[in-house]
């Protein structure tokens, strides 16, 4: 069936869009945006159709008992024979959902950045590059290709923030890129270690995961891979790039970065670090849970004191990413499934948050929460969406946040060790502080008396409504009907969990 | 046949070389430094001849090598001095410390 090509088409389409924009005139903004709207809209439809056929394929499938991820729409071409590097592309439950998430967020991102005027062509080309990298990472099962796409995803960030950003953009761009590249340097080391350590001279993930690496090897290289990916998902000591980076990034970029790129970290840990080095994972995680717990409990408190909306959202991402890592660190089936769901839910949630903040900033030209007030009267659509995004953030049932968080908490509690139990209790009680800072921000901004200078603000226009509605559909879709997502993830988390269990009791 | 041994000559040459090196590093006048370089070259030639004399299977070519080195040293010194003279005409000084345009 042609779907393996369709799968590869997903990351090729953005590049085509970028190529097409080269031929457009410099000042013809509308054409650039139309091209991108069409391309990313097509990509979204493509992703949805792939998802539908994926669900059809896995309908009523028996729970996976093996330890190898079953790939759908798989395609394996030799790429660099000398080093035995393959273009090995395939999709399981998690990758499929992450691709759908990326498609939704970039589609919304394109419409959210409809107002970009200066150098629109270059902005969209870099955005396409970023998205192509992200798509590639989610679907490639060859470590080298995965790392290549990972780098392609990380590097345009510098230009995007440095040129189109606001505030201390050079400093933030430099800081963000340097820390992420430091992380990927660690990754490079880890990947090469796997390639040579396994004496199999292969980058294929499924093959590497079956190779019994010696315990000492795993004990050494797991933290390297973990922190390599962890830097991108803002693990405690290395999270400081995220607030600065997001605060100065333009709307679409911070949507994409917080929404999807930070999930690459969690996805990488799940797909590479835990899948290939299970003993290392089970040995290191009881220690790594402490910075993760700090991540979860620490974010809200700092967000509480922030004035800038983007900083608040950035620190909330730090806390939510901490939950993702918590789900992974507890090594229980429900925990890992919960962290996968949290990746998706947080992607939608932060994407929506940053989109709305961009739109509100476009109108009030200030992101300081204290200066704003009573905006609900002037822009009810944006106000209601912001409140909905906030409630999804603090885990209100009926929205995606709750489903993911409760799965993580239930999964985390299944791990009997006292340290993990303590961290779980702290994480559960931190939903209160999350509620506090979200409500403070929402109330300061939306409710209360309306300052006269905001008297003439307009509500969302059609492209902004479209962007927000797409993400709201995602939030409600996952929140009200989580069943199908949970089943899809079962298929992809089971082999990984069996692999982990095999490691604990060989 | 004199009673001194090869090592004595080698030590002597080393001493010469060391003094030349000291002079090179401590002098500030460029021509002074060239003199010291000349001295170090001479020490090297002494070594060559000493080895040719004491050890080598083909003593003549050893000595000849030393001669060639003397010839080339001459050419090189000529060019060096020419450059120095030109430099002096431009900058009115030959102090090594002042001529430091090459600094990073």
């Amino acid at each position, binding site marked *: 069936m042609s779907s393996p090509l369709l799968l590869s088409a997903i990351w090729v389409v953005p590049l085509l869009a970028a190529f097409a924009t080269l031929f457009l005139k410099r000042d013809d903004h509308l054409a650039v945006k139309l091209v991108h709207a069409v391309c990313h809209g097509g990509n979204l439809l493509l992703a949805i159709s792939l998802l539908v056929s994926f669900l059809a394929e896995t309908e009523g499938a028996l729970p996976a008992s093996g330890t190898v991820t079953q790939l759908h729409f798989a395609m394996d071409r030799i790429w660099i024979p000398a080093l035995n590097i393959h273009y090995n592309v395939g999709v399981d439950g998690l990758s499929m959902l992450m691709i759908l998430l990326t498609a939704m967020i970039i589609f919304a991102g394109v419409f959210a950045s409809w107002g970009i005027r200066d150098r629109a062509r270059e902005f969209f080309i870099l955005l396409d590059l970023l998205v192509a990298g992200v798509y590639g990472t989610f679907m490639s099962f060859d470590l080298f290709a995965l790392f290549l796409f990972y780098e392609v995803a990380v590097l345009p960030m510098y230009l995007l923030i440095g040129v189109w950003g606001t505030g201390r953009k050079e400093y933030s761009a430099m800081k963000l890129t340097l820390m992420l590249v430091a992380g990927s340097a660690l990754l490079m080391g880890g990947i090469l270690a796997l390639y040579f350590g396994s004496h199999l001279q292969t980058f294929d993930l499924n093959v590497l995961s079956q190779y019994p690496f010696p315990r000492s090897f795993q004990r050494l290289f797991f933290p390297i891979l973990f922190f390599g990916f962890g830097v991108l998902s803002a693990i405690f000591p290395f999270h400081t790039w995220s607030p600065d980076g997001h605060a100065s990034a333009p709307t679409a970029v911070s949507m994409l970065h917080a929404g999807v790129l930070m999930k690459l970290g969690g996805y990488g840990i799940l797909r590479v670090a835990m899948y290939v080095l299970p003993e290392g994972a089970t040995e290191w995680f009881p220690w790594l849970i402490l910075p993760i717990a700090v991540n979860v409990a620490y974010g809200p408190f700092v967000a509480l004191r922030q004035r800038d909306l983007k900083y608040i959202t950035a620190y909330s991402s730090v806390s939510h990413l901490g939950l993702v890592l918590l789900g992974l660190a507890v090594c229980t089936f429900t925990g890992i499934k919960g962290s996968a769901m949290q990746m998706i839910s947080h992607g939608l949630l932060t994407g929506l948050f940053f989109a709305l903040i961009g739109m509100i900033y476009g109108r009030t030209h200030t992101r300081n929460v204290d200066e704003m007030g009573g905006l609900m009267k002037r822009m009810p659509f944006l106000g209601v969406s912001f409140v909905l995004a906030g409630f999804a953030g603090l885990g209100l049932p009926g929205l995606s946040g709750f489903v993911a968080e409760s799965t993580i908490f239930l999964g985390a509690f299944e791990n009997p060790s006292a340290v993990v139990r303590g961290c779980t209790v702290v994480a559960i009680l931190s939903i209160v502080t999350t509620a506090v800072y979200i409500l403070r921000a929402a109330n300061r901004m939306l409710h209360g008396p309306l300052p006269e200078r905001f008297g003439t603000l307009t509500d969302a226009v059609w492209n902004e409504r479209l962007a927000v509605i797409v993400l709201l559909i995602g939030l409600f879709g996952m929140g009200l009907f989580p069943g199908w997502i949970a089943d899809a993830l079962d298929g992809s988390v089971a082999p990984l969990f069996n692999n982990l269990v095999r490691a604990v009791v060989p | 046949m*004199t*009673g001194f*041994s*090869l*090592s*004595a000559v*080698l*030590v*002597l040459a080393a*001493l*010469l*070389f*060391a*003094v*030349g*090196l*000291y*002079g090179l590093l*401590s*002098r*500030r*006048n460029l*021509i002074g430094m060239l*003199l*010291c370089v*000349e*001295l170090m070259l*001479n020490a090297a*030639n*002494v070594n060559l*001849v*000493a080895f*040719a*004399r*004491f050890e080598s299977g083909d003593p*003549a*070519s050893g*000595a*000849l090598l*030393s*001669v*060639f080195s*003397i*010839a*080339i*040293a*001459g*050419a090189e*010194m*000529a*060019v060096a*001095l*020419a*450059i*120095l*003279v*030109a430099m*002096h*005409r431009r900058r009115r000084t*030959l102090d090594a410390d002042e001529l430091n345009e090459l600094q990073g």
Partner: protein
Amino acid sequence: MNADPVFLAVAAAMVAGALGTALCKNVLHAALSLVLCFFATAILYLLLHAEFNALAQTMVYVGGILVFMVFAILMTSRLGEKDLESGAGRRAAALLVSGAFLFAVVQAVSGAEELLSLRKAANEGFASFGDVGRLLLSPAEGGQLVAFELATALLLAALVGVVAVARRPAPKSDPEEEERR
């Protein structure tokens, strides 16, 4: 070591000359002491039975290079100009480096003692003029004729180079010339 008096005298002269070159503040005195050192070296070559070398040494080095050096000194140093004085720290560092070098080489030489003493006796007239001349000019496989011709080419190039570099620029006063001076 049974110190041979002649060798010691020659060595002492050489060292004295060297020290003079290195230490004299006035560059002219340094050049002259270098002359002494080169003559002592020539005598050493004679002791080592390398007559041709001795001759070459005295003619090229002393006759050629040093005379040229003295000319250069006289051309570049203006009368009454104070001699350049280098700082104490710098001299100390130089002493340190050269001392370390001396220590290293002496270390190596004394180490290899038993090897050198073995093969000391070579025939007397090894580098007589006839031998060296035959070696220099014979095109046979052992000969150095090719090297000799190259040496001559090199010297010619150096000669032309020196003239090109050191000649005074043409007196016609074109603007950029003025500006450059």
